[in-house]
């Protein structure tokens, strides 16, 4: 994948194996996402990969009515998902009526093709999993 370095490749290798990989600091214990070569909290270089539980909640969301390009058929739901480990990631909420999405809604990890391109981690309502 263009522009992906070895560090980020570990994340995408995880996606290929059906895992959502985040990082945890070996010194202070903090989780972080996106992947970094250092812990953003304490500066330690002892950051390790962890497989996230895949449980989280919708921190905020928007139903996009005008897509960013022809590859993205509107409407689609762009959301910030707060994982139960405490980190936040951008993703989609799928398999749901856009009118039923609310902030705080419990969601669960799955994987889908996004934007007609690669398989990405996305989320479905926890009630459907």
């Amino acid at each position: 994948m263009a522009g992906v370095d070895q560090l980020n490749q570990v994340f995408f290798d995880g996606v290929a194996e059906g895992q959502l990989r985040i990082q945890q600091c070996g010194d202070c214990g903090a989780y972080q996402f996106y992947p970094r070569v250092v812990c953003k909290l304490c500066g330690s270089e002892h950051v390790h990969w962890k497989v996230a539980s895949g449980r989280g909640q919708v921190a905020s969301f928007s139903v996009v009515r005008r897509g960013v390009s022809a590859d993205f058929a509107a409407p689609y739901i762009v959301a910030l998902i707060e994982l139960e480990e405490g980190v936040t990631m951008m993703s989609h909420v799928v398999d749901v009526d856009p009118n039923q999405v609310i902030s705080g809604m419990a969601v669960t990890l799955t994987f889908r093709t996004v934007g007609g391109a690669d398989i990405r981690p996305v989320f479905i309502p926890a009630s459907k999993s």
Partner: protein
Amino acid sequence: MDLANVAIVGSFETDLGIVTDRGPMALGVQATLGAIADAGLQPSAIDGLITCNSLVAPVMYHAEATAEYAGLTPGHCLSVGTGGGTTYTALRYAAAAIQTGLATTVVVSMADSMRSFMTRDRAMAVQSSSGHPQFEQPYGPTVPAYYALIARAHMDAFGTTEAQFAEAMVSSRAWAHQNPTAQYRERVTVDDVLASKPIADPLKLLDCSIVSDGGAAVVLTTLERARDLPHAPIVLKGYGEGHHYEHISQATDLTQSAAADSGKAAFEQAGIEPADIQLAQLYDCFSPALLIQLEDLGFCDKGAGGEFLASGVTQPGGTLPVNTHGGMLSHCHPGNPGAIFGLTEAVRQYRGAANERQLAHLEHTLLHAQGGIMSSHATVILGREN
């Protein structure tokens, strides 16, 4: 030398709105030379040029290329790229160059042509490319969607309503209606905004800034030198910046921005409070951005931005006039230079040249801009010479 010893002495706006006869570089050069002439100076007096690169036609050495085109040979050239915040960050670097003796007289100039020299699809792609390339952009977020995430969070936290966000455009058009250079001048109602096309829930078309062509420039010099020039000096009283994150998915609080830091620093340096401001020129790229700036800069309490906007105080005749030119929601938004028209309008207000929009009393102006998604904030406080 303290900040108040630097003054704005020249100002110029090109044609604005839909401008097809000249592109970004030509507009930037026109703005540069126009501002120098407005200051009553010869081009040879300019020893610093600070510009913002074009998104439409980026060049590798933007300030240098602008100088070359204009026939300037300044001792210092710098292109600044802090997105929407560029205008005020550039203004601070210009002042710093003057304060430290690096330069005596500096032009800050910028222009772009996103309306006429870029297709809508390309403009959409360029703007949304501010997202993280591996962890945000693959999900197809548009720029309105980024701001919609903030709007939704504000609604969830404080009960802000879509009708309150709509007041941003109502206020903007009330001012733009009085400004012949504004691209959109028709008054709108809250219902008009609510009925406009859905873009990224909860934001509709009329919650979003416009897309324009145009440029502007200002000239800064020492206060001492400014006293010999035609226009009464407008002095820099305070400046602050704040940077909590770059990508929206890294924000720890979607409803509290680093404008709180930049505003606090600027007020402290100026030695004044929000109540001392007669004109606020804010960054209204999207309605929630305006609302949150009003809170974070201290004009109202956290969470009360919706009620504050809906009370009409920012409109003509209100106690806190905001964006008297019409702002980026109605006046001109060519891309990253958008905030410079808040500055050139402030200059017009200080000179008593704002016609129908003229404020009766103006001592202190607050200028604020931000880049990214409420990410990089810069605040300037202007005043008159004591």
